């Protein structure tokens, strides 16, 4: 730094009108220019390679809104939502079981989490699919009785495989959330005469949500992508449909890109939803709610005209 700031000319010498704004020549970061150029060059070469490859890019828009693809997207969404539902409900249940004072329920919950987190979800899916080897019939007494193979449809297999696995992860997330709430909250609620379940429902869980929602958003996005594993058990969700179309239409790689684009689109939509959900549960925790992206843009637009502060 070659800038001279005369320290001896302190506030005593300067007039009370305020110190003069510093006009200094900024440091030049030449390294930044070099690294930016290298990064852009690499990016361009990758894009160029893809554009020159033997890929029929035109096939992607042709099939993007194909009925089969849309159907696959809907099934992927259905699978994501239902599996997460099973996961969240199961997770809350398991978390409460693990935190309960009853040693039997807490050990069962521990065992469940240990088992389902410890085995790959792909293996679990295939096991559910092949459980017909163990059970020939399903017999729920007078309510329902059928062959296992016709009871265990690909959808049900997928839901059980994904949902039960997810419950194990959600249990840990929920447990962390419940433990994050100050014990004084439970005490205050009990002192008012509220029961355990009311305390949990009205006081503890709403506060735990602040800790639970962000990782759960990640789980939803993970789940959306993990549903592609279900392709191996003959459930025609997005990835399976894309592969099928790819084989019959002679554009397999193109259809994979198409599937990737759809996944990207869906996860982006979910991310936006997650942001607003987090904002909702942040109420009361900070004095002002974080701005929505729309509000941020508006604020930036307003400040564009006349930037405040001299840090340019």
């Amino acid at each position, binding site marked *: 730094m070659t800038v001279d700031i005369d320290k001896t000319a302190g506030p005593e010498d300067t007039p009370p009108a305020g110190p003069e704004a510093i006009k200094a020549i900024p440091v030049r970061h030449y390294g930044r220019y070099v690294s930016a150029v290298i990064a852009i060059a690499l990016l361009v070469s990758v894009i160029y390679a893809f554009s020159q490859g033997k890929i029929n890019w035109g096939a992607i828009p042709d099939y993007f809104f194909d009925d089969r693809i849309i159907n696959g997207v809907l099934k992927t969404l259905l699978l994501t939502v239902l599996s997460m539902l099973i996961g969240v409900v199961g997770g809350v249940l398991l978390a409460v079981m693990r935190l309960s004072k009853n040693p039997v329920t807490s050990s069962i919950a521990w065992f469940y989490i240990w088992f389902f987190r410890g085995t790959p979800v792909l293996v679990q899916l295939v096991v559910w699919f092949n459980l017909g080897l163990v059970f020939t019939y399903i017999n729920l007494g007078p309510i329902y009785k059928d062959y296992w193979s016709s009871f265990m449809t690909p959808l049900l297999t997928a839901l059980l495989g994904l949902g039960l696995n997810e419950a194990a992860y959600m249990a840990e997330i929920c447990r962390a959330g419940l433990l994050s709430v100050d014990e004084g909250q439970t*005490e205050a609620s009990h002192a008012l*005469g*509220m029961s355990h379940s009311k305390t949990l429902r009205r006081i503890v869980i709403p506060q735990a949500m602040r800790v639970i929602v962000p990782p759960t958003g990640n789980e939803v996005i993970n789940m959306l992508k993990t549903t592609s594993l279900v392709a191996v058990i003959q459930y025609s969700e997005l990835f399976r449909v894309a592969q099928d179309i790819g084989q019959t239409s002679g554009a397999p790689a193109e259809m994979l890109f198409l599937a990737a684009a759809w996944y990207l689109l869906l996860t982006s939509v979910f991310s936006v939803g997650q942001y607003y959900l987090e904002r909702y549960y942040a*109420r009361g*925790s900070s*004095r002002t709610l974080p701005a929505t992206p729309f509000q941020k843009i508006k604020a930036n637009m307003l400040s564009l005209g006349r930037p405040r502060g001299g840090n340019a």
Partner: protein
Amino acid sequence: MSANVTKAESATTMVKSEGVHKSFGPVEVLKGIDLEVKSGEVFCLIGPSGSGKSTFLRCINHLEKINAGRLYVDGELVGYRQKGDKLYELKDSEVALKRRDIGMVFQRFNLFPHMTALENVMEAPVQVRGISRAQARERAGQLLERVGLADKAKNYPSQLSGGQQQRVAIARALAMDPKLMLFDEPTSALDPELVGDVLDVMRDLAESGMTMVVVTHEMGFAREVGDSLVFMDGGVVVESGHPRDVLTNPQHERTQSFLSKVL
């Protein structure tokens, strides 16, 4: 120890403690507390930290389980039911039922941060007493006005100062129409200039005839508002009497040395 409390006694006695012991693991915090709180009086508990006064207060609404002795609130045993000479632990729901009538104010306020001041006050009447939301809202508004915070009804606790939070906490406890109020060092976590507002509300409450058990370091409040005062140290009651007598003319050496440090 006799477990018989006659009707005549229970009409005038709100809290009665007979040889109450409490241990946390190997540490004995209360070593036999005997005292009596009359209906309508302001009963102050003072003493050095670690003397067991907060623990004793928490025993009164069964936030802590006592290990020995008997504790009665309004003539009824706390946490247990006696049949013959056997004690039966109360179910959680029965304990909750008794806690409805005992308000508690904590050192750290413990307001529900996800609810506005008004919702904090409404919560228990709606959820526990089953009062309609409209009715609870009206009553909560009145209580907030009583503690001087009518204009803060829509604020979340994080938007209130410590003194304001504590006054909301008092309103929240009052919303259940308790017959007994417990205060656990209600001003200890407050900035000095905010203490006065909270004490004013408590003074007002005392004048309305509420039975109050107050753990406090505010000797001025104890002297001015208190009807009885107990000095605790090392898990026992060292000295008790009228606040003016104990505070101005302490008999016991430990009381004298404590008061010489805080006054």
